[in-house]
């Protein structure tokens, strides 16, 4: 079955081509939706078969490279269209195709009645194809094709409602920030390729070959430069500090897009990339520290902003940025397996949360439309008490919220706790480890707080929507609720494959599964890891208990403020107006970027246009023409038309020439 791995990106490509070129003629929504969903679902089936086959193999044999066709062979540079199957890519394709299929199904219901229905499914399929290229690529070039492709599809899908200026602006912002990251990725790629080639005559961009040659890479130095550049790419793609501001704006796109691209798949590309090249990243302690610090900082920064937002999708967007920060924190302390584990559980519960919010927004929109009101359907201040009207949505949403808050028994607990434990215990960064853990713990507390704030404001309490339209609120159809139920179920049980050894109930299947991928990185890290004191089991139990307590504290605060005594939020913001204003306005980061980066760029553009292009370039071109005209204006009088003038000039010329030879 491994030979058929190329089918996995091929099915969505076919879906894109059919829906893209013929979608306009196929007016039937069911057909278009079916084509799109079946395409990605077929990829899911193939992925399942590949996973089952891989489980049957012994761990050393679980690496398979399939060359679809040889592509670029130019001198020393060799890049084939080839796919790499190993435990890591298996997990990724399962997540992408599985969650993708559910979201395609959901979109059939959610996007009903939209004018560009076929366009949506075409782009969604194109996105899935690019993402699958990214995770399956066996060399950096194929990965980069997917990398760029998902950025493009993100632009196309965020700007889906292109009639709205805000959507177009958000799409451009996302694409430009991604581009900055892509530049980093390319520079890193070039640096690595050039260094291995010129120093060891190993000219390759293939992951397997680089892994084999990784023992030749030095610790630090050029590896630090290359990995920092790669990490810049990851910050752009995965919305970390400083390149994260596009993600909240990306909520302009339809909710399925937010669920698929900006929660489960595209934004995880950066994490996957670090995992794929763990053996390179681990060789630079400096970069690992940068990754961990940036991850932790992003986690807490975004978490603070999320506490004050009123738009339901904005809160989820900042939550995504924050959880991605956790994943990078994990990668930065060398716990690559934990990072990927959180990637997987996050995909489940975050997709469920986004799809649930879509269900809520759909119901609100429908109700407000019926009552001819123009209130914001996404503003939580207009919601409340929806659990009676939308029980299934409420239940799945609640389950996913409990998961993200890190309550034991649900998937998020296992992955988040693993990250926090590794941040504390994995001795890569010495003293810094404690602060990383502390930041993560505080961010986890905030996470629990704002997520339950969201749940309480939306589903509990009295219904704040205009009473005229309250009766129109109803549960969403099955196409929407079935994916919610599946994802909710996964949000609960998805974590049990990664249960830590401490709890002893199940072996940690997940970690063992990914061991062969990351063990080389583990060997390298052992050479410079700080030799910490042997950490005992009781410490692990304490920290685990600590994270549970932290989560419960967050939930309790949210409960007090939004269910028991709903005047508390107002009193809080009145006591700290400046702080509230700063947090509500995202710490003014967009304004800061505008002032420091965007406006100078615009000024540079103006200067290059008015100052350089018009004055210098046009000046030179026009100047040359003017000089020629000047000369010709003088020389034309030579042609007087009078015979005697010509005769005189002939005589003069003869005299000059004779004179030259006579006096020479």
């Amino acid at each position: 079955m491994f030979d058929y791995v190329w089918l996995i990106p091929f099915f969505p490509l076919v879906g894109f081509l059919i829906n893209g070129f013929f979608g306009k003629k196929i007016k039937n929504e069911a057909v278009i939706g079916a084509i799109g969903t079946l395409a990605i679902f077929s990829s899911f089936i193939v992925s399942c078969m590949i996973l089952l086959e891989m489980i049957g193999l012994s761990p050393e044999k679980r690496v398979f490279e399939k060359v679809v066709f040889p592509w670029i062979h130019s001198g020393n540079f060799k890049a084939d269209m080839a796919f790499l199957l190993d435990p890591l890519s298996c997990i990724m394709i399962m997540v992408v195709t599985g969650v993708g299929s559910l979201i395609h199904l959901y979109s059939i219901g959610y996007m009903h009645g939209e004018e560009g229905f076929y366009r949506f499914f075409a782009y969604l399929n194109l996105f899935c194809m690019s993402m699958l290229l990214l995770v399956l690529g066996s060399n950096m070039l194929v990965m980069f094709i997917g990398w760029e492709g998902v950025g493009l599809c993100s632009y196309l899908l965020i700007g889906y409602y292109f009639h709205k200026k805000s959507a177009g602006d958000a799409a451009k912002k996302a694409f430009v920030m991604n581009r900055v990251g892509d530049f980093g990725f390319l520079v890193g790629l070039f640096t690595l390729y050039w260094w291995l080639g010129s120093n060891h005559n190993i000219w390759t961009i293939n992951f397997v070959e680089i892994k084999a040659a990784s023992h030749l890479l030095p610790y630090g130095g050029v590896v630090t430069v290359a990995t920092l550049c790669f990490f810049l790419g990851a910050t752009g793609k995965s919305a970390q500090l400083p390149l994260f501001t596009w993600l909240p704006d990306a909520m302009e796109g339809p909710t399925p897009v937010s669920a698929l691209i900006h929660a489960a798949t595209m934004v995880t590309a950066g994490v996957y990339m670090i995992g794929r090249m763990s053996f390179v990243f681990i060789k630079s302690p400096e970069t690992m520290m940068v990754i961990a610090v940036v991850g932790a900082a992003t986690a807490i920064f975004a978490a603070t902003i999320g506490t004050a937002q009123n738009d339901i999708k904005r809160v989820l967007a900042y939550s995504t940025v924050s959880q991605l920060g956790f994943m990078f924190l994990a990668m930065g302390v060398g716990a690559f397996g934990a990072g990927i584990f959180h990637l997987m559980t996050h995909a489940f519960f975050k997709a469920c949360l986004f799809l649930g919010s879509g269900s809520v927004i759909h119901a609100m929109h429908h109700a407000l439309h019926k009552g001819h009101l123009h209130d914001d359907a996404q503003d939580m201040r207009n919601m409340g008490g929806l659990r009676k009207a939308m029980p299934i949505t409420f239940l799945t949403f609640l389950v996913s919220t409990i998961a993200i808050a890190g309550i034991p028994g649900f998937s998020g607990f296992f992955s988040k706790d693993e990250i926090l434990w590794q941040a504390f215990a994995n001795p890569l960064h010495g003293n810094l480890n404690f602060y990383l853990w502390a930041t993560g713990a505080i961010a986890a507390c905030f996470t629990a707080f704002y997520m339950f704030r969201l749940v309480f404001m939306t589903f509990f309490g009295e219904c704040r929507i205009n009473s005229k339209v309250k009766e129109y609120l109803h549960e969403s159809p099955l196409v929407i609720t079935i994916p919610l139920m599946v994802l909710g179920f996964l949000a609960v049980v998805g974590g049990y494959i990664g249960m830590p050894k401490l709890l002893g109930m199940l072996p940690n299947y997940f970690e063992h599964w990914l061991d062969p991928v990351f063990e080389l990185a583990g060997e390298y890290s052992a050479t410079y890891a700080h030799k910490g004191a042997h950490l005992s089991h009781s410490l692990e139990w304490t920290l685990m208990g600590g994270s549970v307590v932290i989560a419960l504290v967050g939930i309790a605060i949210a409960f007090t403020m939004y269910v028991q005594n709903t005047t508390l939020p107002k009193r809080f913001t009145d006591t700290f107006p400046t702080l509230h204003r700063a947090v509500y306005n995202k710490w003014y980061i967009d304004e800061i970027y505008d002032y420091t980066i965007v406006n100078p760029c615009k000024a540079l553009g103006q200067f290059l246009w008015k100052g350089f292009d018009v004055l210098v370039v046009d000046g030179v071109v026009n100047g040359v023409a003017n000089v020629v005209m000047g000369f010709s204006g003088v020389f034309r009088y030579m042609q007087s038309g009078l015979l005697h003038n010509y005769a005189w000039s002939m005589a003069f010329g003869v005299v000059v020439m004779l004179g030259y030879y006579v006096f020479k």
Partner: protein
Amino acid sequence: MENLNGYLIISAILFSIGTVGVLTRKNAIVIFMCVEMMLNAVNLTFVALSRHLGNLDGQVFVFFVMTVAAAEAAVGLALMIAFYNNKESIDVDDINLMKW
């Protein structure tokens, strides 16, 4: 030849007179006559030097020059007739259409 210088000087004078005529006179026929004078001055030079050097090449060349002069006179006069048909004058200052 002991009076070679005399022949050459006369030839030079004739040539100069012809040049001045070409450069100064208005009438096209007069200009043609001056051109003939210049060609004949050159003929005189050729013959004098041929006699002086004892080589007949110069005199052979004179035949060429005379032939050319005759042909050129024929062509030039035909040109002038065509021009007169057009402009009713053979003043060379009136041939001035090809100018800036």
